[in-house]
């Protein structure tokens, strides 16, 4: 019973991945629907696995690195499912699911940190962290879409059309999906950052003090606003915007890893 949600999540995500691969390979509508269904089941099971982990640790799931990774995986799956339903496009599921599975497995199969709960947590803090991780998940998705765009564009330009080209989404749809994803990320990171300042103000009585995380978050925000503007401009639309999107995600990864682990005093795992 202890690991029931863990096992169910792994099975559902693995099933979903297999069906997405099958859909990419055969284009059969029924296989695609099954992939989406299993992803939905995986999301529900993953949610309960997160709750289970929180209860075990007596703290919020993002209080340790692994919990934060699992939450990232969950939000990645949630954002992807939303975009899939919004754009009615399933062909990229096979590329997104491996990331979700890796984050979930890395988080739940690793030994948990035994940390005492941090002080003065509350709703503002919870939303600050959740929205920030949601933003990172959305940015990760936009990077995946951009990578697929570049790969497909390269194949179309080289005129070497492998089987997969006929199954991938059209280039313009990939651009739209990437922009939608960045839009979700921008809204989330903007609200999340404001809530972070509110929480700091409540905790320390002052809204600002220097933390390298602030600088890099501001940079991420600016870079994605820039992408959002340039992606529709004459000079940048298409492959250039996709490359910018991938570069931006590289900065996000830096923020998530180097800055969090080595530079920031207050942001450890998010």
């Amino acid at each position: 019973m202890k690991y029931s949600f863990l096992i169910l999540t792994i099975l559902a995500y693995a099933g979903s991945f297999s069906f997405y691969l099958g859909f990419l390979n055969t284009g059969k509508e029924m296989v695609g629907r099954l992939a989406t269904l299993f992803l939905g089941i995986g999301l529900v099971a993953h949610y309960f696995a997160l709750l289970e982990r929180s209860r075990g640790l007596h703290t919020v799931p993002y209080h340790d690195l692994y919990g934060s990774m699992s939450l990232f995986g969950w939000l990645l799956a949630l954002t992807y499912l939303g975009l899939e339903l919004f754009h009615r496009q399933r062909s990229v599921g096979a590329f997104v699911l491996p990331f979700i599975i890796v984050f979930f497995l890395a988080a739940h199969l690793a030994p948990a940190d035994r940390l005492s709960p941090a002080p003065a947590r509350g709703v503002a803090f919870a939303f600050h962290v959740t929205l920030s991780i949601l933003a990172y998940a959305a940015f990760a998705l936009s990077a995946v879409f951009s990578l697929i765009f570049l790969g497909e564009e390269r194949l179309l330009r080289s005129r070497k059309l492998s089987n997969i080209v006929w199954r991938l989404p059209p280039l313009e749809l990939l651009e739209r999906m990437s922009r939608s994803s960045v839009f979700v990320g921008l809204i989330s990171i903007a609200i999340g950052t404001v809530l972070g300042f509110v929480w700091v103000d409540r905790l320390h009585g002052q809204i600002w003090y220097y933390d390298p995380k602030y600088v890099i978050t501001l940079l991420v925000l600016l870079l994605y606003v820039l992408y959002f503007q340039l992606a529709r401009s004459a000079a940048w639309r298409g492959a250039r915007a996709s490359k910018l999107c991938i570069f931006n995600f590289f900065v996000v990864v830096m923020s998530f890893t180097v800055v969090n682990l080595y530079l920031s005093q207050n942001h450890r795992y998010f």
Partner: protein
Amino acid sequence: MEIVLVGLNHRTAPVEVRERVSFTAEQSRKAADELRSRGILQETLVLSTCNRSEIYGVPPETSHECAPGLSSFLSEFHSVRPDVLGVSLYHHYDREAVRHLFRVAGGLDSMLLGEAEILGQVREAYRYAHEYGATGPVLNRLFQGALEVGKRVRSETELGTRPMSVASAGVKLAERIFGKMHERSALVLGAGTISEQVVNQLRDRGIARLFIMNRSRERAEELSLRVGGTVLGWGDWETALTTADVVVASVASEEPVLRREFLEAAMSARGNRALFLMDLGMPRNVEASAAELYNAYVYNLDDLTEIVEQNRHARESEVPKAETIVDEHVGKFLSWQASVELVGLVDALRARLREERAAFIRARMDSMNHLSAAERERMESMMDELLEKLLLAPAERLRGEKELRRKIQNVEALRDLFLSNREKT
């Protein structure tokens, strides 16, 4: 309950013969009516497309005897000399006829392997024949099976997924860039046959706006009358290239018509929105270096021909999968056919045994005068009960066991074994 098929197709008859033997809807009906009124067939269905004319039927006698009658009928109906028709016609019976139809519905017998149109044509022919009552239980079951085969081949194999003509490959490639064509516009340069083929493909895919440009405005207007679209004056590149998402160029010209500088200016004017150029001219209509322009995708005739060739190989590799589906459904149909025939055989056997029982009792009862009427009745009833018991188990097994029906497919042999000639008919 045999099935017979007589017909010709693109492999057995040249287009001149196919044209003469094709059926309009009205002719199909007339032919079916005549075939039934003359007693040649009990059930009939005429399948006529540009590549084939076939008559499927269930004859009242054995099918092998009615095939020559069908050939003569075709010759007479279309006023074609029997010797001209004879070399082009094929005859298939029972299993082979069923298999042929299922392969036709699956697109395996088409000129363009895996083409989708044939399934719609089979469906339409069946709907029409069913509506005017030319089909019966056998052809209904046969054509329903054929439609199922067609659907399965299309959904379970890749036989029909890849474009097989230069025109369709070009349009499918445009969809790889823009998605659905419903909100897109296309410019067609040239008003020849190949331009028309591409326009038809674009129309099928729901293109929103179509512009036609040709050196001879008159020919552009003729094409526009046939396929719709707006005619633009030759050389109005600014209007044409700024608006269109897809450009199809098929103009007879020694020099490229779409020069790099035109396209460069157009890309700038359209804010670098993607532009797909299908260059079907020979020599090429689009300057080769235009392929380097940002967000411009140029495919020439060789590129598209190579894609079609790759797709042909890919489709051919799907044929064994499709044949497996056909075989599975042929087996199912024959099993159903055998079950219907076997049930009929059991009924005939039951009637025969009852007659034998009645004759037996009549012959024996004269010497058994000591029995009362009630006892005689009781004895007859017991004999009936015994006969029913003997026949019940095999009848039920025949209804329930597919494998058994498959094994006993030659019902005629069983009829010969159990029934006299009188009872077989």
